[in-house]
């Protein structure tokens, strides 16, 4: 043994005047931070094990607890932050790649916060969404340039591409069963069904119990092809090919064998206890042509009835890649920004690879318009859509819809402690431990998800009404509705917006 260089990150404050020693904190902490000492008749803490998930704080019946940052601090330096010093200590003791979870916490510009939304005054009057009809329903898929009519005047649908009809322009993005719990999946599935939108299986396959929600399920096909079968493809309203993820562009995934429980093994269709490794690339995709083959294989397998989605991480040449995908036969493109969440990613990758969704979205939309193929594909923006105003700005930058995951997890109790990779989630979300999974009550959680989307939709309609717009179609790509604030000419140029005051 040698000295441990790493001080605890957090300090646990307990108001002993209030603490009644009910020990609920102790029973509910999977990190075993709290403990009772009978000799002292007092609660104590192992604060070095605390991840600041706030479970104890939240359930404490007397509100006796608070978690704060450990006031202990290393000597300040702008170049070497305490975080960096600790990471080096950690690696020196383990020799391992640093792992992190959820979205990039570093101080990169958030362009959503540097864009302002327009509102009507005097001319082009604003609309009161409580009085006037307001359309936020969206159809995702290829829009053909011309249509043929039947003799009776109706549109000949046989020539149209399959569309994904969503009642709200908000879907739940891919989170696999394995990365999140059974109860979390159930909550998402039930919420999507009640809302008339979609949730996404992620790359972990679809648990048999959830086939009943098929009309609101997007099934994902990723490089590991876990759980992919004819039944699985048929169980989706759309099929998503995952080429990349915003939080970890360019790398694959690794679910350790110990997390491959009986149920996960069945769902992923791999032996129990074996590591589930998603390769970095799809080993059969080295070109847009290869991607097109997979897209059409999937369409062939499902009678051309389901839209095929291609999801890519936002990276440097995203516009050119998107152009290729729009020509590959895909119906919907998902662009996932670098601030998007993850259940586990190497820290350096998460914090340093990829580009912001705002810039990627604007440049892709512009490129496809310039090439006159914007109608060939719908665009879904993902990777840190944090609020309804982020969503409105995404629509104005050209998104047809948005994917949300972190806000969905927040709705069901996530406190963003960013410890998912520890698999001991105290909120029953990012864990497979039955005693922890139990803590997420789907009966409660799905209603919270429904509430969240309803609330966002109200706000979106309110903002649209303010702009004098009564249909999402009229907001889409309407960059005149946005102005930049504190942005450089180059940033404004990429975003395709004017500066505030212009």
């Amino acid at each position, binding site marked *: 043994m040698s000295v441990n260089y790493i001080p605890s990150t957090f300090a646990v404050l307990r108001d002993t005047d209030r603490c*009644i*020693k009910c*020990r*609920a904190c102790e*029973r*509910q902490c999977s990190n075993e931070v709290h403990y009772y000492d009978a000799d002292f008749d007092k609660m104590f803490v192992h604060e070095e094990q605390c991840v600041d998930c706030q479970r104890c704080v939240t*359930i404490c019946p*007397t509100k006796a607890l608070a978690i704060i940052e450990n006031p202990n601090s290393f000597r300040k330096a702008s170049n070497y932050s305490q975080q960096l010093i600790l990471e080096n200590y950690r690696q020196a003791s383990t020799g391992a790649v640093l792992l992190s979870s959820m979205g990039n916490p570093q101080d990169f510009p958030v362009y959503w916060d540097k864009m302002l939304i327009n509102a009507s005054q005097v001319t082009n009057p604003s609309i009161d969404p409580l009085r006037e009809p307001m359309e936020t329903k969206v159809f995702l898929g290829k829009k053909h340039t011309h249509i043929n009519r039947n003799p009776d005047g109706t549109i000949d649908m046989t020539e149209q591409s399959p569309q994904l009809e969503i009642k709200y322009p908000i879907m739940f993005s891919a989170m696999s069963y394995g990365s999140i719990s059974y109860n979390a999946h159930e909550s998402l599935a039930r919420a999507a069904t009640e809302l008339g939108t979609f949730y996404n299986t992620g790359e972990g396959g679809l648990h048999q119990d959830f086939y009943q929600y098929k009309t609101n399920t997007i099934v994902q096909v990723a490089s590991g092809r876990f759980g992919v079968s004819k039944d699985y493809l048929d169980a989706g309203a759309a099929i998503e090919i995952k080429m990349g993820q915003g939080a970890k562009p360019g790398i694959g995934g690794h679910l350790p064998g110990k997390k491959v429980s009986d149920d996960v093994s069945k769902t992923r269709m791999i032996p129990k206890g074996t590591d589930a490794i998603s390769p970095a690339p799809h080993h059969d995709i080295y070109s847009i042509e290869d991607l097109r083959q997979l897209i059409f294989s999937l369409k062939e397998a499902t009678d051309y009835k389901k839209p095929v989605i291609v999801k890519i991480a936002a990276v440097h040449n995203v516009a050119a890649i998107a152009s290729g995908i729009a020509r590959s036969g895909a119906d919907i493109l998902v662009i996932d920004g670098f601030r998007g969440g993850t259940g586990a990613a190497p820290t350096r990758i998460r914090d340093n690879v990829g580009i912001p969704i705002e810039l990627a979205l604007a440049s892709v939309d512009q490129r496809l318009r310039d090439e006159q193929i914007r109608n060939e594909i719908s665009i879904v923006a993902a990777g840190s859509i944090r609020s309804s105003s982020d969503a409105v700005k995404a629509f104005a930058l050209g998104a047809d819809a948005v994917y949300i995951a972190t806000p969905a997890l927040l709705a069901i109790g996530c406190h963003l402690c960013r410890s998912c990779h520890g698999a001991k989630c105290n909120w029953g979300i990012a864990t497979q431990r039955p005693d922890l999974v*139990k*803590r997420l009550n789907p009966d409660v959680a799905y209603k919270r998800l429904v509430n969240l989307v309803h609330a966002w939709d109200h706000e979106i309609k309110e903002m649209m009404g303010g702009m004098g717009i009564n249909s999402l179609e009229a907001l889409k790509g309407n960059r005149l509705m946005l102005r930049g604030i504190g942005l450089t000419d180059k940033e404004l140029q990429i975003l395709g917006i004017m500066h505030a005051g212009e």
Partner: protein
Amino acid sequence: MKRVYVNENRCLGCHLCEYWCAFANSGEDSIVKAFKLNKDAMPRINVEDSGEIHFAVQCRHCNDTPCVKACITGALSVDAEGLVSIDTERCVGCYTCVLTCPYGCIVIDEKNGGKTVTKCELCVKNAGGEPWCVKECINGAIVFEDRSKIL
């Protein structure tokens, strides 16, 4: 009549219901007072833990009321709705009800050295309305529902 039921799949074994129950029946106006000033506040609900199994149990207010029938003093009684309640003034602490209750739900009141027993009365004598165990369950595991079929 509405009764309290626990969903074992949802019960986390946090034992908070016991504390809220004790508070609700303590006569104090805050849970801190109930435990700081009134040290032996007794819960009438009990969480059983066995490995991964947890569930809260309290008087079922069952149809048979063996405790009421066995009570030697008339302290235990059942009203027309089916609510089984105890008049602790009349209880002599013979524990015949403890002997009889198949759910183990008659609680010996340690607060008075076991001189009487006590039991869940669905919070009708304190704050009323929804029982506190139901109100404060952090996982929606304890519910207050009418599951009796009209016979």
